[in-house]
């Protein structure tokens, strides 16, 4: 046994922080590495030591085996944990770590290599009696494809070296197969440098169920039950849970046994995940083995009470797994949602920006694994996942509601997120019934964004207007102890105008003698209820750090408010609203004469080259203005007819004076 005293984490973001927690509990000094854009990242701040990686792209930094090993040498690390992604499933990295005399926190390089190729993995699994789908292997030069007798349409073409949905194609008719195969080959070559593809039956309405396994040097192999990952978007999982809502104990035992068999046949060590595809009848087949810690591992930790990273470190140190299969039981239900910086309404495209605020709620039994903090810059270079949020509860419904509530109560500002999508998915009847499948987003009408109610908008603009006034009042450089806009005589009510989702809304407010405010809210679209002014009496209670209660006609709304420049965020139990405060002094609108050409500067007109009615080509000379002994030529910007001439030769003109009106030819 070799205890790990100094652990280098070859990763970033939330997983680096998560590994840090367990490593520190195990008494290991934590060494971080970081790309230049991560210099201020939380995973670096939390480490005991950190080493800068030179370069900017992932390939130059977190994927650069040489730099990472050099960092380990320099810091005296005795072990390396790869996290997930990046180098975690590169057999050559594992080999290099071991060759450098360090402990590799992961499976043996041979197991990684064997599982990295889907075709060879399937072959190996069938020898161990693990159920696999029939396969049509495709060479690189095959031109005719005959489906084996046990395979019927529809089928799916997959890249053998693939993952993440790349090089994957579903085919429903035989005549489409050749083209699909060629397309998949092209993609496979482009993404993985290996054009090998294969065909297997496509299981409609399938669920992906994965079994967490652990194996140690002492011959112990255990499984930690399953995780179910039914909600995806863009072929990536966003909501995962444990246990599966559809598996019964018998299936669970059968799949657990298959997973253990898979681990044994590959001589596995450490933590891994065996993925199965399950059809609606409950029949299951091997898909692949992920030879790393999964993103969604916390749901397993929640329901089993074990710390998978601790087990990884123990196994890597040569110690046995700290429990036996029979010690494990499933306790309650856990659901994890992945919060991404992305815009669901724009096809879930990644979003960027600076997190002006990142404050997760402190609800009990909700775990936040995040790689960001207030002030973090979310760029395009790394994965746009902001956090994983895990709720654990006695029942699945409670877990879903608890998770949705926690997400709603998160304060995240400055970056567009998929929060509203996650909240609506978690509350969707199909998800709550446990029937959601991989095409949940496409097949249901789950909301991608929230449409705020008028009442909510009225409350939000009221809150922003009154918080704005109270901020200004407390910042007054003179007369600081007088109430806001206290006055004698008569003045119009104060007002603030906001743009909210295409609507322009004005809040008029007047402080009353009892420190309440008379509010009148007007605006909105023509056929909008807000077009009728809403009048009420409001009172603002502030509780520091952006927390306010707005009492409107006796009804209190709890809100959290933040503002930066002209942007306001108002978060209530109904969700977060972004308001844009319009400037008090809008830029003047100078009505320009259509087609009018003006003098570029003050001078004397020395030549008028056109007459009324002249048709001019673009670039043709219209007039010459002389100023300070320099000639300035006024040229036609487009094809048109001179309809007005406002200067004659010898005229003094001032800069900005109208000279010629040129009506564009259509």
């Amino acid at each position, binding site marked *: 046994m070799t205890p790990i005293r100094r652990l280098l984490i070859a990763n970033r973001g939330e997983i680096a922080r998560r590994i840090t927690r367990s490593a520190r509990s195990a008494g290991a000094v934590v060494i971080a590495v970081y790309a230049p854009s991560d210099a201020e990242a939380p995973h670096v701040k939390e480490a005991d030591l950190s080493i800068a990686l030179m370069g900017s792209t992932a390939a130059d930094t977190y994927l650069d085996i040489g730099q990472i090993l050099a960092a380990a040498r320099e810091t005296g690390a005795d072990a390396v944990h790869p996290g997930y992604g990046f180098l975690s499933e590169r057999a050559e990295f594992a080999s290099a770590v071991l060759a450098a005399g360090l402990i590799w926190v992961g499976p043996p390089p041979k197991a990684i290599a064997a599982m990295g190729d889907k075709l060879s993995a399937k072959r190996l699994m069938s020898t161990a009696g693990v159920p696999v789908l029939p396969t049509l292997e495709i060479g690189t030069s095959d031109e005719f494809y005959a489906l084996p007798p046990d395979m019927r349409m529809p089928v799916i073409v997959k890249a053998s070296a693939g993952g993440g949905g790349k090089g994957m194609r579903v085919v429903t008719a035989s005549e489409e197969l050749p083209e699909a195969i060629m397309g998949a080959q092209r993609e496979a070559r482009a993404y993985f440098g290996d054009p090998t593809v294969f065909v297997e039956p496509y299981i409609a309405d399938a669920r992906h169920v994965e079994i967490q396994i652990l194996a140690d040097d002492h011959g112990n192999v255990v499984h930690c039950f399953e995780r179910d990952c039914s909600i995806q978007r863009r072929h990536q999982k966003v909501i995962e849970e444990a246990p599966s809502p559809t598996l019964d104990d018998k299936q669970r035992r059968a799949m657990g046994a298959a997973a253990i068999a898979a681990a044994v046949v590959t001589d596995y060590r450490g933590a891994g995940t065996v993925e199965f595809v399950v059809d609606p009848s409950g029949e299951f087949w091997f898909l692949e083995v992920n030879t790393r810690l999964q993103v969604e591992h916390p749901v397993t930790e929640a329901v089993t009470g074990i710390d998978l990273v601790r087990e990884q470190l123990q196994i890597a140190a040569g110690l046995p797994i700290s429990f036996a299969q029979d010690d494990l039981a499933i306790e309650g239900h856990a659901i994890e949602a992945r919060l991404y910086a992305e815009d669901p309404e724009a096809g879930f495209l990644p979003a960027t920006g600076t997190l002006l605020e990142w404050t997760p709620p402190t609800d009990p039994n909700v775990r936040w694994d995040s790689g960001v903090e207030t002030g973090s810059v979310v760029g395009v270079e790394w994965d746009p996942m902001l956090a994983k949020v895990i709720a654990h509860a006695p029942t699945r419904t409670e877990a879903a509601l608890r998770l949705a509530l926690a997400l709603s109560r998160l304060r995240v500002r400055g970056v567009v997120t998929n929060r509203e999508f996650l909240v609506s998915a978690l509350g969707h009847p199909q998800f709550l019934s446990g029937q959601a499948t991989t095409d949940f987003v496409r097949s249901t009408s789950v909301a991608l964004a929230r449409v705020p109610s008028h009442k909510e908008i009225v409350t939000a603009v009221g809150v922003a207007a009154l918080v704005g*006034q109270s901020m*200004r*009042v407390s910042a*007054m*450089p*003179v*007369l*600081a*102890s*007088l*109430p*806001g*806009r*206290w*006055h*004698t*005589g*008569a*003045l*119009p009510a*104060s007002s603030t105008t906001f743009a909210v989702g295409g609507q322009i809304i004005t809040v008029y407010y007047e402080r009353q*003698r009892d420190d309440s405010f008379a509010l009148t809210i007007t605006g909105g679209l023509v056929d909008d209820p807000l077009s009728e002014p809403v009048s009420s009496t409001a009172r603002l209670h502030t509780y520091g750090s952006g927390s306010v209660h707005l009492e409107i006609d006796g009804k209190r709304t709890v809100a959290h408010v933040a503002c930066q420049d002209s942007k306001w965020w108002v978060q209530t139990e109904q969700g977060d609203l972004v308001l844009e405060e319009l400037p*008090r*002094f*809008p*830029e*003047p*609108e*100078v009505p320009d004469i259509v087609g009018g050409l003006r003098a570029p500067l003050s001078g004397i007109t020395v030549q008028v080259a056109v007459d009324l009615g002249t048709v001019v080509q673009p670039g043709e000379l219209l007039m010459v203005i002389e100023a300070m002994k320099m000639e300035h030529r006024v040229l036609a910007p487009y094809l048109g007819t001179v309809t007005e001439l406002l200067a004659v030769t010898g005229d003094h003109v*001032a800069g900005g004076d109208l000279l010629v009106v040129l009506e564009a030819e259509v």
Partner: protein
Amino acid sequence: MSAAPVLDTAVDAQSPISVANRMAMLDLLAEHDALVAAAAAGGGPAAAERLRSRGRLPVRERVSLLLDRDTPWLELSPIAGNQTDFAIGAGVVLGIGVISGTECVVVANDPTVLGGALTAVSIRKVERALQVARENRLPYVQLVESAGGDLRRMGAGEGAAAELRRSLDHFAESGRIFHDITELSARGIPTISVVFGSSTAGGAYQPGMSDYNIFVRGQAKVFLGGPPLVKMATGEDSDDESLGGAEMHASVSGLADYLADDEHEAIRMARDVVDHLHWRKSGPGPTELANPPVHDPEDLLGLFQLDLRAPVEVREVIARVVDGSRFEEFKPGYGTTIVCGWASVHGFPVGVLANNGVLFSDAAQKGAQFIQLCNQVDTPLLFLQNITGFMVGRDYERGGIIKHGSQMINALSNSTVPHVTVILGASYGAGNYGMSGRAFDTRFVFLWPTAKIAIMGPKQLAGVMSLVRRGQAERRGIKVDEEAEAAQNEAVEEFAEAMSLAVYATGRGADDGIIDPRDTRHVVGMALSACHNAPVKGAEGFGVFRL
């Protein structure tokens, strides 16, 4: 923070008399609110709508945009012109407000009232604006849109001749406002004009004498003589824009320093100009904790009876005006009809002089001493008036009441710290003088709706006149017609009463306006803060005290 004792209270706001007083006060306030609303309505909603339809703003919206958002605004004399032949409010908005963090005097013409033409009352308001700027060193901002002098003849139907005989105004005495604008500049007080419309003939000197001029394109019209006058004088044909348009002045004559494309931009430019002044207040403070009084200012509504018959414990007023109701009283056992002591209002230290009855010799001497003490340490004075006058009668005359009253008037006349006066109730005769009335270089004078200001009480005045009439009749041996005498007596009293009321005084611009008693602390606080833009310095010498 001052450790002065906190005043106690004996007010029972629920007592029948308090409730009755409060109802009567609320009626007076409603009456005043209606007058303020009438003044604010200017030329009426149709005129405001016409303005708006041309992309222009009503005057109070211009003022509101000029001020920093959510900052306080102390409008002065909002209903000047009340009970006169002139428009209520006089088509001029005058006040003290905060622009770019700087307290400024703002004066603005209302173009919906006679096109902003200046009447006798509006000139009074503009002159007052200039005086406030001068005395308190406040930057001066005017929003100009004025047809010029009011050329109409007053007194139609009565005969112009009678009107002319009565009027003592003459053109030769006009134009003082132009003198005063440039005098501000010479004293280092910046002057800013924003011209929204006409500012012609004499009015052209309003921007002419200003330090900074902002003209609105297509709206500002500034010339000595308009096209008709030019035609008459020189035969030249011309138009408004070429004679005095904003673009011409910004690019040719140089009269305009800033050319704004619209009213919003002009106001924004004025705010930028004030911002670059980097104005520093010359006075200290606020230095004290500005916490609200511990006693409810609402109670102030129930303290005074409209007929001012019942005595009022003025400490109950002080307890609802000064910070934290803290009041360190001076000589509480001596000259008890005047209450003197130290306190602060919105953090500004003040010496308070407040009446608790008629002024006797000892009270006058106490006041004179207190004024000198405040001057010694540069502390401003707050006068709370409820005074029927100095005591009369043989014993008092023999005791030197004139001499002692003169000591107090000497002290306050030569006092150089700022004085702010609030007339709560009675303000009769020499009592008005001794308690720093308007004529005694008082920086600000405000009235409660219950204020009555006159040479003496209406009943006393009517009674005195009656006695004089009876004396005359007696000397001539004529028998007094008691019925006629009673009627005349009543008429005189009624007339004197009407002339003594706050709404009459404020209509004449004889003060800075009527205030809601509950606002007293804020009004005084703003006035004091304005005063502290100028150095606050006590007198180094007084007139010879007649001892």
